[in-house]
C-alpha cells in the first residue's frame, strides 16, 4: 500500500453510515460499521492504491465490494474478507477483477461485516472516479517528400554496345574470313563505314542521352530515413502507452468534493 494513499487518510472526512442488521442485533452490543474513504484524492497507478477503511464497533469479519451505481450485481472489485478489530484497511488498485483499468464513472463502495454471533451490518459510500489526461508526446508526422530523396532520377545513359558492334564490324571480315580470299579483296571499305557510323552514333548517344533511372543510393537513404522514423514512432507510442497506463485517477466522494 502506498504511503501517499495512507497519508490521504489524514484528509478524510469520515462519514459513518450505520446500519443494523434486522433481527440480528444483540441487546448489549449492536454491530455498527462504517466505511471511510478520502473525500477527494488523486491516485497514480500502478504503485498507488485507493485506501478503503472499515471501522466496526467490535470484532467482525469485513469485506468491501465495488459496483457501478445502479448495477449492484456487476461487481467490479471485491476485497478479501479480513478481520476488523476495530478497523481494517483495503487498497483498491483501481483495476477490475479482470485486471483492466477501471472506467470513469460512479461507483458504490459497499462494506459488509459479520461478527461472531452471525450478526450482519453494512455500509456504503458512492465515489466518482475520473481519469486524468495522460502526459503523452505527439507522434512524429509522416515523412514529407522534402525529407525523402527522389528514387527516380535523370541520369546519363551510356552503353559500350555501340563500340562493341563497331569493333566487331571492323574485325569480323578479317578474323573470320578465309585466308585464301584475302588477296582477292579490292577496297571493301564497307565495314569501316558501318563501324564508324555505329561508333559515332554510340558516342552521340553516350554524350547526349538522358533518361529516367532508378537510384539505388537514394532508395537506400530513404529506407534508412523510413526506418529511423518507424523506430522513433515506436518509441513514442511505447512511451505514450506507458503514460496512458500510468495516468492518474481523481476520486472524490459524492458530497465530499466537486
Amino acid at each position, binding site marked *: 500500500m502506498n504511503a501517499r494513499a495512507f497519508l490521504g487518510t489524514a484528509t478524510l472526512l469520515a462519514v459513518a453510515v450505520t446500519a443494523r442488521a434486522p433481527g440480528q442485533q444483540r441487546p448489549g452490543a449492536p454491530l455498527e460499521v462504517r466505511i471511510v474513504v478520502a473525500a477527494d484524492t488523486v491516485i497514480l497507478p500502478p504503485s498507488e492504491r485507493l485506501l478503503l477503511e472499515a471501522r466496526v464497533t467490535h470484532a467482525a469479519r469485513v469485506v468491501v465490494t465495488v459496483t457501478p451505481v445502479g448495477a449492484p450485481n456487476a461487481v467490479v472489485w471485491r476485497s478479501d474478507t479480513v478481520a476488523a478489530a476495530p478497523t481494517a484497511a483495503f487498497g483498491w488498485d483501481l483495476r477490475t477483477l479482470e485486471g483492466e483499468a477501471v472506467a470513469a464513472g460512479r461507483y458504490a463502495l459497499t462494506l459488509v461485516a459479520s461478527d461472531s454471533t452471525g450478526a450482519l451490518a453494512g455500509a456504503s459510500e458512492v465515489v466518482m472516479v475520473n481519469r486524468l489526461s495522460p502526459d503523452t508526446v505527439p507522434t512524429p508526422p509522416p515523412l514529407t517528400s522534402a525529407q525523402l530523396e527522389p528514387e527516380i532520377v535523370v541520369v546519363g545513359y551510356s*552503353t559500350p554496345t*555501340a563500340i562493341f*558492334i563497331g569493333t566487331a564490324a571492323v574485325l569480323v571480315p578479317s578474323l573470320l*574470313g578465309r585466308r585464301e580470299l584475302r588477296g*582477292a579483296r*579490292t577496297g571493301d571499305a564497307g565495314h569501316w*563505314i*558501318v563501324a564508324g557510323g555505329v561508333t559515332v*552514333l554510340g558516342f552521340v548517344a553516350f554524350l547526349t*542521352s538522358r533518361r529516367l533511372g532508378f537510384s539505388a543510393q537514394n532508395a537506400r537513404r530513404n529506407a534508412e530515413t523510413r526506418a529511423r522514423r518507424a523506430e522513433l514512432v515506436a518509441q513514442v507510442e511505447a512511451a505514450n502507452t506507458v503514460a496512458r497506463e500510468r495516468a492518474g485517477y481523481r476520486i472524490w466522494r459524492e458530497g465530499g468534493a466537486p
Partner: protein
Amino acid sequence: MNGPSRTPAPRPRAGGLLALAGVAAGLLALAPAAGAAQQFSGAVGSFDAHRLIYYHRSSYEQTGRLVGIAGTVRLWRLRLAVGTERGTLSASTAIPNSDARVRSDAASLLVALSGDLWLGVTREAWRFTADAGVTRWVLGGPVVRYEPDLGLVGLRGIADVSVFTVGGVRDGPGLSKAFRTVLGVSVHPAFIPVSIRLSHRFERIDLRAATADPESVRYEEFRGVVLEATVPARR
C-alpha cells in the same frame, strides 16, 4: 563463274521455304484476331555486295548491288520475316569469272527471349545464273539477333548471326562451314515513319570438295554495306 556446282537449270528445292511461307500465311490468317499484339512492316534495301570466290587455287571477285524487299509480321513474341533480293554481280576479270544474276529468297522465324534478344531459324534459297548455267544453294540454320538500345530514342544496334548448319549446293557439295554476320545500327527518327538500317553484312560459305580432288573445294564470301528502309504498319 560457278565452278562445280553448275547445273542445267534444276528445279528449285524450296520445301523449307514453302513450309515457312505456310507458317507466315497461318499467322496472317490469325492476324485479324490478334489485336494490338501484332505488327506488320515492310522493308526495301540494297546490298552493295562483293563476292569473293576461291576455287582451284584461284580467287575471283564479283561486285554489284542486290536490291530486295522484305515483309515482317510480329505476333506477341514471334517474328516471321520473308524476303527476296536480286541483282547482278559483275565479274572483275574475264573467263572463268563471269557475271552472275543472283536471286535469294529467305524466310526466318524468331522468338523474343527478351526485349532486344531474338533466337530463331532461317531458311534461304539462292540462285546464281551465269553464262555457264544455274547454281542453286539452299541454306538453313539458327539465328541469334541482338538489337540493343543505344541510348537515344529510336537508335538501336544490330548484331545478327546466322549459322548455316544445313544445306549446300543443290545436287552438289555440301557445306563445311557457313555463317553470316550483320552488324550495324538502326535509326528510327521520331518525325518520320521510317526506320533506316545501316549495316555491314559478311557471309562465308565454305563448300566441300565436289570431287575427290581436294583442289575442288570452293570458298565464297559476300561482304558489303546494307542500307534498308523499313516502314512499320502497326495494326
